[in-house]
């Protein structure tokens, strides 16, 4: 309907152009509105796709939602053969592995970003920066494979026995739980690999944010006799604080939904809450990936899609928070932070 409106609309303003270039005018007037409508439709498609996705997820998980209700969110174990469709084990695994990943990735990303912006020669910074961006381009399945064949044996044979032999080994959360299988395939391993997967994103955004700190402000700091660290800590970081928080949110969103690497590494225990980071567990995304092909009954499938809906809602929530935060920051700093 709007197509018709727009095609007709230009004609009232026609006479002016027509008086000068009557023979060519008609063609031009049709091309413009058509192009505009086409572009608008494509733009709106992007938005419609999202609502389509949400609608399809809700529609397909409806049987599970009506049959199971809130039981999904209150029971632990996922064991369709015994009629248990609990999401808590998967939610706990998702949260724990993400926390491990962020604890490792955020400080590391920050020191690397500071180094790139403040300490090294711009040429070195560009090369290292590009290398780190390349790290982001490597597909997750490769991280998963390297994790499984290289990092898992190392953690199982060296790191976990060593940690457990120290006093740390008795701290709750590190002390092995009932499901402990040696610590190789565990939430910790998944978190470590996740950390390396989100590191490039957080580093790249933090670096860009730190670069926005006005040179004059930093020079004023140095002029006062501050050391490099004091300028970073008290001026750059404070200036870029909110941007860095945005970067962390983005990394967090990625870690929450990462599938393949986690599916390889987290150990696939669906029935128990992890008691320790060295326990195996599962995450929502990896549970979906591993269980989907085994879902034979309608309810199994629907419950898995409902899990997908939960993950979708969590990531959308985080994205909206991150967006809102970044917008607020942009308004506050008046620029592209």
């Amino acid at each position: 309907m709007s197509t018709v409106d727009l095609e007709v609309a230009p004609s009232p303003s026609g006479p002016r152009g027509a008086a000068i270039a009557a023979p060519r005018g008609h063609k031009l007037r049709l091309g413009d509105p058509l192009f505009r409508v086409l572009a608008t439709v494509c733009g709106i498609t992007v938005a419609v796709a999202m609502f389509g996705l949400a609608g399809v997820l809700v529609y397909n998980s409806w049987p599970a939602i009506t049959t199971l209700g809130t039981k999904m969110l209150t029971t632990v174990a996922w064991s369709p053969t015994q009629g248990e469709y609990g999401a808590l084990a998967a939610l706990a695994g998702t949260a724990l592995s993400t926390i491990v990943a962020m604890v490792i990735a955020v400080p590391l990303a920050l020191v690397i970003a500071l180094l790139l912006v403040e300490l090294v020669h711009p040429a070195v910074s560009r090369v290292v920066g590009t290398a780190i961006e390349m790290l982001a381009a490597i597909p997750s399945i490769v991280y998963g494979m390297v994790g499984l064949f290289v990092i898992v044996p190392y953690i199982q044979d060296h790191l976990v026995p060593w940690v457990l032999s120290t006093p740390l080994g008795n701290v709750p959360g590190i002390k092995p739980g009932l499901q402990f299988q040696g610590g190789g395939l565990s939430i910790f391993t998944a978190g470590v690999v996740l950390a390396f997967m989100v590191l490039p994103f957080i580093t790249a955004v933090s670096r860009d944010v730190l670069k926005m700190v006005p040179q004059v402000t930093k020079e004023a700091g140095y002029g006062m006799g501050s050391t490099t660290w004091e300028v970073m800590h008290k001026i750059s970081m404070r200036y870029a604080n909110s941007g860095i928080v945005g970067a962390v949110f983005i990394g967090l969103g990625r870690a929450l939904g990462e599938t393949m690497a986690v599916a390889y590494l987290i150990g696939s225990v669906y029935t128990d809450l992890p008691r320790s980071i060295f326990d195996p567990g599962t995450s929502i995304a990896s549970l979906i990936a591993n269980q989907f092909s085994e879902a034979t009954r309608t309810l199994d499938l629907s419950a898995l899609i409902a899990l997908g809906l939960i993950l979708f809602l969590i990531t959308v929530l985080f994205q909206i928070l991150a967006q809102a935060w970044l917008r607020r920051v942009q308004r506050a700093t008046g620029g592209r932070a």
Partner: protein
Amino acid sequence: MSAVPESTSPPAHLRRRSIGRRKATDLTVKIFSWIGAWFGIIAMGFLVYEVVIRGAVAWNWAFFTQSTPQDVTSTQGGFANAIVGTIVITGVAALMAIPTGFLGGVYLAEFGRNGRVATAVRMIANVVMGVPSIIVGVFAFAVLVKPLQHYSGFAGSVALAFIMLPVMARTTEDILNLVPNELRESGLAMGAARWKVTLGVICKAARGGLITGATLAIVRVAGETAPLLFTALSSPYWMTGLFGPSGFFGGPVANLTKTIYDFSASPYPHFQTLAWGGALLIIVAVLGMNILVRLLFQRGKEW
């Protein structure tokens, strides 16, 4: 941050610490930064090294010419059908998502700008980019696999296109926004139609960046596994034709990432070797394309 007192003595928290201690802190932080950065670089080098060492063994003539082995005791076979499948699935996804995403980006940058609709579209596109790819796979399964009762390469393409669409739209918008407004104004002042200015002047000026953006979007989804798990699935056969059980629309289509996943999880050494070969191929393709577009169109980034 607020008004600085006009006294000559520095604030108390600065006076208390000795210069030695401050310098020591500074040095410690610098050392940690260096260690952190080297850690990151070594991790990446290590990752690539492991894949190269383990994958190079698998690379031979058969790897690129034979289809995936079906017999677990076989020491034959390659990844050729999976390579072709990935190219076709990704190619069809690109055909769907690149033009749509490009025009969507044109809408955001040229027509919608800061209007209410465009702001909403932009925000939603950003949110969609953060949706885990497995969810998109579930979506494509629910729309194209479940109702039709069979897996298909096309369902995989749709999932990948879904992921590509917002990326392409937002990249296009960002790049078009970098083109100076004077170019738009001079084009329009010459009496050219809006669409001619947009496509012939603005997009031409930004073509390096646009090609880079499109290539990186394609490369990014080419390495995706999760969206293909329940859509394209995998198959030990060559894709033949469009319809029928081994066609693009009619049945599972072999693809690199899913095959790598299956083979690496199998207990057979030969299958694992092939999986490493596939991983190496993906790394070479992804990093190679990244470096190539950066070298060719670096100018496009500076716009």
